[in-house]
Every structure is written in structure tokens, then in C-alpha cells.
């Protein structure tokens, strides 16, 4: 028995539906994967920023009573510099502070989506936080050397 007019279009609809689903999965894979890479890079930039900021502490206070007192402006400058070097221009350090004897940094970035823009999400916000402890230890007398 031949198909009715309504049945004739069913294959086209099925293919259109399956292609739409596959396209959606593909779009999600690209944008979620891209956002994961971007977030990880932002986290590394925040780690580097915290590590750099932790170098800007008052050494006397650290040695005498193990208190971390930040040179705020220098720490912020260092954090911003290393966040930018490692995370690119799109990352911004939003705060540098001391918490529980750790120097902490929060940073924000955005990921520009490729496909999710089609459903109104042209970018995804990324917020990261990292803390580092300034360490005191063995002194090394020397001017340092370069190795390229």
C-alpha cells in the first residue's frame, strides 16, 4: 500500500530532527569544551597571580611573628602582570587579599561562544580564585644566572 501524503514527509522531518539534535550536541561539545579550556587557563593565570602576589609580603613580619602583611599596591601590580602574561588580555584580577595566612587572588574572564550565541548566550562568565602561601626558607647567596 503506498504512503499517504502525510507519511511522505515523515522521512524529511525525521532527518531534520536528527540533524538538529546532532548539531546541538556538536555545538555543546565545542562551546562547553572551549569554555573548559578557557576556565582552566584562567585558573592557571590566577594561580600564577597568587604566586606572584605572595612574593610581595613584609618579610620582617613574616620572619618575626609569621604574619602575612601584604604590600598591597605591589601585590596587585604583580598579580595583574602575571595574570595577564598567563591568561591573556581578557582576564582581570578583581581582588588580592590575605586569608588564613594565604595570599588569595580572584579573577574574572569571559568565554565567547561560537554556537550558543544562537540561543542568546554569546559569552559565558568565568570566575576563578587561587591562594598561595609565601614561604620562607633557605637563603641562597648569589646574583642568579640566566639560562636560555
Amino acid at each position, binding site marked *: 500500500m503506498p504512503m499517504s501524503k502525510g507519511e511522505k514527509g515523515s522521512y524529511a522531518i525525521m532527518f531534520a530532527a536528527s540533524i538538529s539534535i546532532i548539531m546541538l550536541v556538536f555545538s555543546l561539545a565545542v562551546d562547553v569544551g572551549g569554555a*573548559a579550556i578557557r576556565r582552566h587557563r584562567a585558573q592557571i593565570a590566577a594561580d600564577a597571580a597568587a604566586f606572584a602576589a605572595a612574593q610581595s609580603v613584609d618579610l620582617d613580619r613574616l620572619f618575626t611573628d609569621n604574619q602575612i602583611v601584604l604590600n598591597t599596591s605591589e601585590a596587585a601590580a604583580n598579580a595583574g602582570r602575571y595574570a595577564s602574561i598567563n591568561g591573556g588580555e581578557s582576564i582581570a584580577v578583581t581582588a588580592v587579599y590575605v586569608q588564613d595566612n594565604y595570599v588569595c587572588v580572584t579573577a574574572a574572564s569571559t568565554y565567547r561562544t561560537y554556537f550558543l550565541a544562537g540561543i542568546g548566550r554569546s559569552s559565558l562568565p568565568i570566575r576563578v580564585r587561587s591562594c598561595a602561601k609565601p614561604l620562607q626558607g633557605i637563603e*641562597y647567596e648569589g646574583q642568579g*644566572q640566566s639560562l636560555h
Partner: protein
Amino acid sequence: MTSPRFSIRERGTATMELAAILPFMALLLSAVVAFGPFVHMRIAAQQAAYDCAFSAAQSLDPGQGFLQGMLTGQQSFRSFGLKSADATVLVRGSWGRTGQVTCTVTYLVPAAFPFKKIVHMPGSVQASVTLPVQQWKSEWR
């Protein structure tokens, strides 16, 4: 056995539709399948570069810092289940109290990577991290 519902002409049309759509579907699915491991490689490269730089920055001695960075970068790759033999870890910098070190990690995407040729994957992934040398402690010396 043929279905009594469709005429030969209608079945031919469905086959044509399937044949037309199948390569496109296969390409999309290949891209989806290949993208996961690619994300994994990118993240591994970024992490290895950070681990390398962090370790290299713990020493004020160039030789020691270089060695620490190199070994840690390769170890980091292995911890991601990737072959460190396919990775190049480059450590350079100035190991002084105001110096900074940079680790650049390049991972060659294996030739046998799934769908590499179909979806035109890049031949390698690269990541670079720069850190100031740890001023107040040289823990590993």
C-alpha cells in the same frame, strides 16, 4: 523481504536521503568524538606548563631549576595518561631573586588520533606559563 507499505520509488527516495545525509552526520559525529580528547590534551599541556614553571621557580640555581621544571613537566603529562615522549618541555629564564622562568610545553598529537585527518586536527598543542622565581624559599636545594 520488502515492506508492503512503500513503493519501490518511495524506498529509493528514502535511501537517497539517507545517502545524502550520512556523510554529514558521520563528519559531525567524528568531530564530537575527537573534540573530547583534544580538550584533554589542551588542558594537560596547560597544566604541565604550570607544573613545570612552578617547580623551576622553586630554585635560585639555574641547573637545578631547569632540571626540576623539565622533570615535573614530563611527570605532569604522564599523570594525564599521555606519553611524555610525545611532549617537548622547554624551560628558560633567569634564576635570580627578581627573575622569572617560562615553561613552554608542546605536545605532538599522535598520528593515530581518532579522526585526526577527517576533522583537520592541529599537529600539536602548545602552552606556556611564566612565573616569578620564588624569592623567599628554595625548598628543593
